């Protein structure tokens, strides 16, 4: 099809209209959803793709790994349904990482086709992390699962709505297979409403611009972003940059799992070769190739051009070499629930590789995890089952001109914490403490950010704890002489002391009066600790973020410096 020539002003104005739509659907989904994971923690994303499934615009707060699932869903829809079978009023739903482009089962993907001038123009998409999708453990995220069948309900691409008519049978299957079905129903409704809203808004745009104009704008957006990313890659010195790291533990006995990367930068292309990484593991930290691509896309953008528009143009620059059946490109029936932990590691590795090429943009290894804590049980106040799911932030690595950040979500995730007042109102749980862990950010000219400690106890009942940690054994490394940060851990505290739990604990009974201790990893420092300023060291001490003992051990000059008269 021929495209009309289109000027930059029209592109900007039309793109602005589409950006409005994805922002509006993002907020509508957040505000009308039922589960805390969406409404408070914003673990959801919205986007618009074109008729070929290319990503065109996404809401600013969308999460990279979600966008990968959406583009995966697009491919699956277009592969399964010939154009004649995609009709107005259809709504597609899917979640499966092996057959439907997803990245793990709790992320439920929705898409509704857009028709303009009688032709398929694209899709409005949204994806939300449901707090449970069934399977063997509450929250569907625990360690110890060895096949995807244990992780919950697998949904291939299906039409939940056909020409505007809900296929109630499908909804019934989805609800029956999840814990807390009432909450799930509310979340599904919110996602469906967000699809409809998006379709209505795009049709309104279609009243002002022709299909041919819109298609030309889409092409321009993608092509310009691709060219811009290529130009950014061209500024990286040519070379081969290698880095490797290990995952702690797959939750089923495999430990220190290696992941290797060789980046070859030639001109305006960068090839990410993961050959030599471990085969996929029994435990659920495997990464579908879409999620690996999301990690590469995230890192390219964060390292090279943070302000670039997020669309297919970036994805097109992600040239990846991987071995099928490896941990970075897993095949069915690999379990994948905790793949975000591995994705975080992939990003640390990419940044590590690029640190030699562009040292001023690199950062120390961050908490490299998506520390997950799931509490479930029967609420003694009303006899109903409850399920509280949360991922906790940790240290963000030291940077070339400033310290890392303490206690924050890093890289591919940016979900909020749940307010303590919300946790205790909604669930029979008490938060005993929440704060930074002393001495947890690695020393350096610019120190790494510290980890978080949160202690929770069940109130008036026995609850079950499931969790997934990473960088609990292998500490987050520093760069250019920066020291590693403190690893994280899970522990069970009873009256007599703390018992350390597995890295990926499953089905831990917590009696009333006993407590679960979650400690997230810190992060690595940047540069030689000897170069840290006196002022920064004073602040480390006065704030009590560091003990005197730690400072004396990691900054050997400190005693000498302190002995000198103040300047």
């Amino acid at each position, binding site marked *: 099809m021929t495209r009309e020539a289109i000027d*930059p002003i029209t592109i*900007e104005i039309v793109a602005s209209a589409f950006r409005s739509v994805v922002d509006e659907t993002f907020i509508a989904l957040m505000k009308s959803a039922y589960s805390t994971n969406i409404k408070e923690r914003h673990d959801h994303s919205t986007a618009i793709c074109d008729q070929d499934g290319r990503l065109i615009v996404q809401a600013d707060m969308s999460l990279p790994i979600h966008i990968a699932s959406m583009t995966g869903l697009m491919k699956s829809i277009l592969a399964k349904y010939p154009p004649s079978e995609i009709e107005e009023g259809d709504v597609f739903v899917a979640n499966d990482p092996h057959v439907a482009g997803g990245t793990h089962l709790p992320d439920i993907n929705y898409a509704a086709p857009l028709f303009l001038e009688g032709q398929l123009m694209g899709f409005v998409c949204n994806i939300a992390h449901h707090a449970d999708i069934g399977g063997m453990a509450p929250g569907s995220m625990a360690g110890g699962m060895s096949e995807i069948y244990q992780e919950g309900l697998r949904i291939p691409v299906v039409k939940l709505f056909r020409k505007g008519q809900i296929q109630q049978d499908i909804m019934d299957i989805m609800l029956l297979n999840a814990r807390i079905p009432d909450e799930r129903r509310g979340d599904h409704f919110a996602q469906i409403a967000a699809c409809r809203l998006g379709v209505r808004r795009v049709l309104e745009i279609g009243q002002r611009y022709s299909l041919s104009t819109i298609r030309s704008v889409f092409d321009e957006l993608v092509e*310009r972003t691709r060219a811009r990313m290529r130009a950014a890659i061209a500024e990286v010195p040519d070379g081969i940059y290698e880095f490797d790291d290990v995952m702690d533990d797959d939750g089923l006995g495999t430990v220190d799992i290696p992941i290797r990367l060789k980046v070859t930068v030639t001109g305006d292309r960068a090839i990410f070769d993961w050959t030599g990484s471990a085969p996929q593991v029994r435990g659920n930290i495997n990464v579908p190739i879409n999620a690996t691509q999301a990690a590469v896309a995230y890192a390219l*953008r964060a390292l090279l051009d943070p302000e670039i528009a997020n669309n297919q143009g970036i994805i097109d620059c992600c040239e990846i070499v991987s071995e099928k059946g490896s941990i970075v490109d897993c095949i069915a029936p690999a379990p994948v629930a905790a793949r975000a932990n591995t994705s975080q590691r992939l990003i640390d590795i990419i940044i590590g590789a690029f640190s030699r090429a562009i040292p001023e943009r690199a950062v120390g290894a961050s908490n490299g995890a998506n520390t997950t804590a799931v509490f479930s049980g029967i609420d003694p106040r009303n006899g109903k089952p409850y399920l509280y799911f949360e991922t906790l932030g940790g240290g963000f690595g030291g940077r070339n001109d400033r310290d890392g950040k303490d206690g*924050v979500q890093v890289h591919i995730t940016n979900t909020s914490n749940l307010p303590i007042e919300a946790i205790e109102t909604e669930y029979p749980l008490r938060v005993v403490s929440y704060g930074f862990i002393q001495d947890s950010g690695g020393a350096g000219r610019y120190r790494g950010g510290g980890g978080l400690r949160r202690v929770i106890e069940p109130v008036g009942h026995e609850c079950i704890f499931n969790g997934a940690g990473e960088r609990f054994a292998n500490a987050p490394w520093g760069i250019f002489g920066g020291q590693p940060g403190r690893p994280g851990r899970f522990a069970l505290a009873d009256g007599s002391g703390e018992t350390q739990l597995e890295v990926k604990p499953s089905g831990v009974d917590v009696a009333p009066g006993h407590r679960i201790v979650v400690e997230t990893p810190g992060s690595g420092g940047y540069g030689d600790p000897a170069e840290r300023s006196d002022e920064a060291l004073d602040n480390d001490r006065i704030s009590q973020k560091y003990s005197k003992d730690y400072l004396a051990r990691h900054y050997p000059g400190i005693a000498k410096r302190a002995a000198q008269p103040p300047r």
Partner: protein
Amino acid sequence: MQAGNWFIGVDVGGTFTDLYAFNRDEGTVALHKTSSTPQNPAEAIINGLRELAAKSNVPLDAMASLAHGTTVATNALIQRRGAKVAVVTTRNFRDLVEIGRQIRPKLYDLKADYPMPLAPREMRFEVSERIGPQGEIIEPLDMASVDAVIEQLRDSGTEACAIAFLFSYLNPVHEQAVKARIQQALPDIAISASSDVQPEFREYERTSTTLLNAYLQPAFSRYMSTLKDAVAEMSPTAHVGINQSNGGLMSIDKARDYPIRTALSGPAAGTIGAIHMARQSGKPDIITFDMGGTSADVALIRNCETSLAFDRDVAGFPVRMPMVDINTVGAGGGSIAWFDRDGLIKVGPISAGAVPGPACYGRGGTEPTVTDANVVLGRLSGHGLLGGAMSLDEDAARRAVGKVADRLGFTIERAAKGILDIVSANMVRAIRAISIERGHDPRDFVLMPFGGAGPLHADGCARALGITQIIVPYSPGILCAQGLLVADQSESFVRSQRLALDAASAPVLAGLVSELHGEALAWWQSEAIREDNRALKLAVDMRYASQNYELQVAVDAELADPALPDTATLKQLFFAAHEQAYGFYNPDDPVDVVAVRLTALGQLPSPGTPPLQDGASDSPKPRTTRKVWFEQPEAVDTPVYDRASFAPGARVEGPAVIDQFDATTLVFPGDVATVDEALNIIIDRARTA
């Protein structure tokens, strides 16, 4: 009150303090501008009042009302010029205010962080106490731990202290006990308790708001005391009101305790002024659009009322309190047009500011701005701004816009029009967010542009939104100052308590309303507001039991005996609001009440319409003609009118340009402008597309 007939609005900005005086009996207006005095902003007000009195023969002892809007708190936050401040928290939770929501402000920027809290970690102290989710005491307050903290506060040399405990919005007893103890031991430090400042759910946002309040208190308190004493001496009968973010006025004593309430008050005054004008013109439903040099504020007014929002960022920190729901976008006259690295063109949010300013100002600016585009198209006269006091360099504007034109291969005029179209698109997004995205169809509203640049850009926004009528107020440049004069005194009362919305809750809800009413009565009494000037608004925040974002539903209430409708009716109101906001509702799911809000108002006498100028006529003649580019590629010879020459009933067909001291209004070809009794210009747009 009968002693005086002058109403004076004072707007304190970072650079200038503006005074606007209105004599209600004679319709006389006097304006004055004086330099601000950041050390003690009250000085500039007092000086300004004296200068105004001398210059314009305004007898200060005949001042009935002084309404004061101030950006002092906002600027102190942005520039970090507040007090040395501490915070006292529940034991084990001093890091809460630094962790915040554990997120980064920009997902892809490895170097962007939220700012550190105003109280660094060594200034955050813990006491032993714990309240639970029902407001129950889980661990009693340990006074020994409080006394230990008092010693630390004393040693730290703190000037102000925030107190924020978990669940204090349900049970303030621990916070209040600690407050009393600190007050007694350290009488010189300012104290803010979260249960006083904003007793609502979500500990981080509540703590942050309280901490900001404490940070501002010492300096604000000095400022308010000076002002109070000086006004008491100069104008003993004057009522003094301080503008707050919900658009109402509060007393000096309230402002001293709650300076954070002034932090977003500036734009709120504009919407109050807009409501006043809209009411005079009989237009109850309007979308306001206040465009200045660097940004534009938009708000939606329905039935002469603004809606309130509760969560905003101020200087990078979250603040939760009732404020007029305003959306701000970085689009103003000084916004710069620039090419991004992908070759796409953007306008703003970078601004040329006042210095160097747009290229046409001739102060060394060379970048193309929105104002330059308006000059190129003849929409702004080269003879200048401010009634000709400042001339504009048309050649410089053409050179600047020419850079964009060259790169696009466009004529200069087409490039200029493109710049304005993009800035319109940015503003349209902001307006959509407060209208369409809240379930309101903008086509049912009238657009009211104000601020220096608003009337120039109204048509572009109206066109994109399908709005058919534009109303340009009499003085677009000083609507905020006018808003100060027409604002009511107001105080918001809230009970944040989660209850299932069913018949069993009805007595509890009635009890809450009665408590709130008792507080309102006490406030009316303390402010000496006469019964016939009292009014109140009642609203309920509701949501599905499983949601976390509430919808606020207003209910009708009797002044003498406010009461909620029965719970079945409340539920229907909630369903309607959910349908409007999100396009659906679930009739079977349980609904919760999360808060009941009562706003008490004290109505002040409001100024009438401005007087006609000499020579005004209902058949005005154009002053001149000039070439103006509207929609078509060619310029049109366009008559230029003086706004001062318009009397009620005047009618002008587009194309036309209407100039006045501080703003320029465009009437597009085919459109018709008429002047109403309140001297507002109503433009009926002929073209809907």
